[in-house]
C-alpha cells in the first residue's frame, strides 16, 4: 500500500513538473484569489502584531502618565485613558491574547469536530448514535453562560483556559455538519469504488472523504476562530476574566466602565472595535477564498472575479454567459 502510494505520488510530482513550464503560476493559485489574499494580508498583519506587539509597544500599557484623556496625537497614536495609559500600546499588547485564544480554540474545536463528526458519519450504527447524541447534548448547552460559569469558577483563568473552554463548548456544530456531509459522501460511487478496490477504511476517510470536506472544515475553523475571539472579548468586556490581562475586550471594558462614550473619548473604544471588525472580516474573506478554491468548478471563476466582471461575464447555471469575442470570419 505504502509503496503504491509512493509511486503514485512520484508520478504526480513528475506530472506537475511536466506541467510547470506551461503555467508557472500554478503553485500559488490560492494567493491569486483577491478575496483570500486580502484576508490573508490582514490576518498576517494581526499575527505579526501578536508576535512583536509587546516589544514594539511605545509605552507600558499599565503605566500611568500625566496626559489624561488625550485625543490621538503623535505622542499617543490612539490617545490616552482616564489615567494616562496609552491606548495604542494596550491594543498592541492585547493582540496576542486575542489571537492565541482564537487560534487555540479554533484548532482544538475543529480537531474534536472532525474526529467525532467524520467518525460518526462513516461508521454509522451504534457508534453514530452515541456520537450524535453527544454532539446533540453539546449543541443545546448554552455556550456563553457556561463559559461565564466555568471562567468564573477558575480564579486564575488565563487566556489558554478560556480558549479550551470555548473549544469544549464550540465543537458540536462543526461535528454535526461534518457528519451529515460524510453520510452523503460515503454513499457516493467513488467511495463505493474505493471500497471495492480494497482501500482500507482509514485511507478512504483520509484520502477520499477528507479532501471533499476541506471547504466545510476550513469554514468551520474560520467560524470557530471568529466565535472564540468574540467570546473572549465578550468575557473580558463584561469583566469575567481577569481585567489585568490586556486584550481588546479589556480595553473596551475600561472604556465602558469609565464612560468613554459619554465623555466623547471615541479614541478609547473605536480602535479596539475596528480591530475586531477587521479580524472578523479577514476571516470571512479567507472563508470565501477557501470556498472558491476548494471547489475545482468554482476555481477559475473565483480566481478571475474582477477580470470576469470587466468582460461582463456572470457565470450562472442555466444561463450561459455570451460574449462576442471570437472572430467571426466564416460565412
Amino acid at each position, binding site marked *: 500500500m505504502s509503496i503504491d502510494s509512493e509511486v503514485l505520488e512520484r508520478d504526480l510530482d513528475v506530472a506537475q513538473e511536466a506541467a510547470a513550464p506551461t*503555467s508557472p503560476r500554478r503553485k500559488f493559485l490560492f494567493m491569486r484569489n483577491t478575496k483570500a489574499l486580502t484576508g490573508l494580508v490582514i490576518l498576517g498583519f494581526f499575527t505579526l502584531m501578536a508576535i512583536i506587539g509587546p516589544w514594539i509597544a511605545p509605552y507600558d500599557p499599565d503605566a500611568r502618565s500625566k496626559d489624561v484623556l488625550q485625543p490621538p496625537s503623535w505622542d499617543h497614536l490612539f490617545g490616552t485613558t482616564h489615567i494616562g495609559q496609552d491606548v495604542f500600546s494596550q491594543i498592541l499588547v492585547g493582540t496576542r491574547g486575542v489571537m492565541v485564544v482564537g487560534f487555540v480554540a479554533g484548532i482544538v474545536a475543529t480537531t474534536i469536530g472532525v474526529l467525532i463528526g467524520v467518525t460518526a458519519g462513516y461508521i454509522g450504527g451504534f457508534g453514530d448514535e452515541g456520537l450524535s447524541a453527544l454532539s446533540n447534548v453539546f449543541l443545546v448547552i448554552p455556550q456563553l453562560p457556561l463559559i461565564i460559569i466555568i471562567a468564573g469558577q477558575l480564579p486564575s483563568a488565563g487566556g489558554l483556559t478560556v480558549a479550551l473552554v470555548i473549544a469544549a463548548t464550540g465543537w458540536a456544530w462543526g461535528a454535526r455538519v461534518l457528519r451529515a456531509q460524510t453520510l452523503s459522501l460515503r454513499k457516493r460511487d467513488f467511495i463505493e469504488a474505493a471500497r471495492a478496490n480494497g482501500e482500507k477504511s482509514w485511507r478512504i476517510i483520509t484520502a477520499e472523504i477528507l479532501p471533499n470536506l476541506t471547504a466545510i472544515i476550513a469554514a468551520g475553523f474560520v467560524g470557530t476562530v471568529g466565535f472564540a475571539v468574540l467570546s473572549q472579548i465578550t468575557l473580558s468586556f463584561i469583566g469575567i476574566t481577569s481585567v489585568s490581562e490586556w486584550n481588546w475586550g479589556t480595553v473596551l471594558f475600561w472604556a465602558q466602565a469609565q464612560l468613554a462614550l459619554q465623555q466623547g473619548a471615541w479614541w478609547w473604544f473605536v480602535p479596539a472595535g475596528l480591530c475586531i471588525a477587521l479580524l472578523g472580516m479577514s476571516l470571512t474573506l479567507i472563508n470565501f477564498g477557501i470556498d472558491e478554491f476548494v471547489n475545482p*468548478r*468554482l476555481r*477559475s*471563476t473565483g*480566481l*478571475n472575479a474582477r*477580470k*470576469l466582471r470587466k*468582460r461582463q*461575464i456572470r*457565470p*450562472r*447555471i*442555466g*444561463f*450561459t*454567459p*455570451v*460574449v*462576442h*469575442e*471570437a*472572430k*467571426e*470570419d*466564416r460565412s
Partner: protein
Amino acid sequence: MSAVPELQRAARPAHDPVLEIKNLSVDYGYDDPTHVLRQVSLNLNRGEVLGLAGESGCGKSTLAYAATRLLPPPGLITGGQVLFTDRDGTQSDILAMNDSDLRASRWQDMAIVFQGAMNSLNPVFRIGRQIADGIQAHKPGISKKEALERAGELLDMVGISADRLRDYPHQLSGGMRQRVMIAMALALDPQVLIMDEPTTALDVVMQRQIVEQIAELRERLGFSVIFITHDVSLLIEIADRIAIMYAGEIVEDASSQDVYRRPRHPYADGLLHSFPPLRGPRRELGGIPGSPPDMSKLPTGCPFRDRCEFAWDACAAITPELTGTAVAGDDPRRTVACLRHTPDLVQAAGFEPKPVPERLALR
C-alpha cells in the same frame, strides 16, 4: 438495425429552418480557455430529425447546450447567433435574450430530454403533478385539473396509461421514466426537441420502442428533433439528416441515407466502418486508428489529418471549410469539410490538389 425502411421519410422537408446556429463558438475556462467549438454553423428545418454524431468529447452535447444556453460554468459562449424562428415567422436570437425571455422560451419553444433523464424526476412527487407543474408555470391561466388532464393525455401519447399519473417515479421502470420525460418535454407543444443520448442507459428493446415513439410523435405533432448520440446505426434509422462532428467542428452534414451509403468525409467513413452492416456484402470492420486530438492544443490545418489515411501535406497547412462536395451528382445541400473536396482552395494555397479517393466518391 442499419436500414429499416418504414422509419425512413419519403421526402426531405423543404428548407424551412426553425433553428439556425451561426458561427457558434464556445470556450471552456475563462483564462487560458479551451476552444471546444469553433464557429459551428448548423440548420435545423421544421419537422426534421437531425442527428448529431461523433466520438465522446467531440462537442455534440456542448453544441446542443450552448444553443440553449444551458452550458454550466465554466462554459462561455464567445460568439455567434442562434436564431429561432417561431411558427408565425418571427425570429429571435437565443444568445441575445434576457433571462425572463429565455425562461419563457424554454420548454415552450425548445424542450430538452437530458442524458440521465430517468433521474430528472423528483422522487417525492407524483409524476402527474410534475408534468402539470410545468404546464401551469408556462400557462398561468390553466387550472390544476386541466393541467392534470393534459398530463394524462401526454402519458397516453407516449404509451403509458393515464392512470399512472398518480404513481411515484420509483414505481415506473427506467424506460417508462424516460417516456415520462419525453411526455413532459412535449407538454407545451415545443417546436424543437433536443434529445441528448436519450436511449443510452436503456436496453436495445426499450431503445427501439422509444425511437419508434419519437418518430411517430414527430409525424403527428410536427416538431423538429436534434438527436445526439454516438450510436450512428441508430441515427441512420431515425434521422432525416446527420451532422457528424469531430474535434468541435462539423465535418459532414448530409441526409442520413447519403451519410450511410455515400460518406464523403474520411471520418464519417471510418465511423460507418466501426459497426457491422446488417445487409449487403460482409466487409471488414475498420475502426479509426489513433485517438481524438487534445482540444486545448489543436494543431493547425485539418484536425483529423493524423488519423486520416488520405492526408497529404496540404492538410497540415490549410484548415478545411464546410463546403459542397466535389463528387458530381451529389445532393447540392450536403456539405463536407475536407480538402479533397476543395481543389480550388488547395491550389490557391500553393499545393497540388488531389482527387477525392474512390472510397469517398461512391455513387
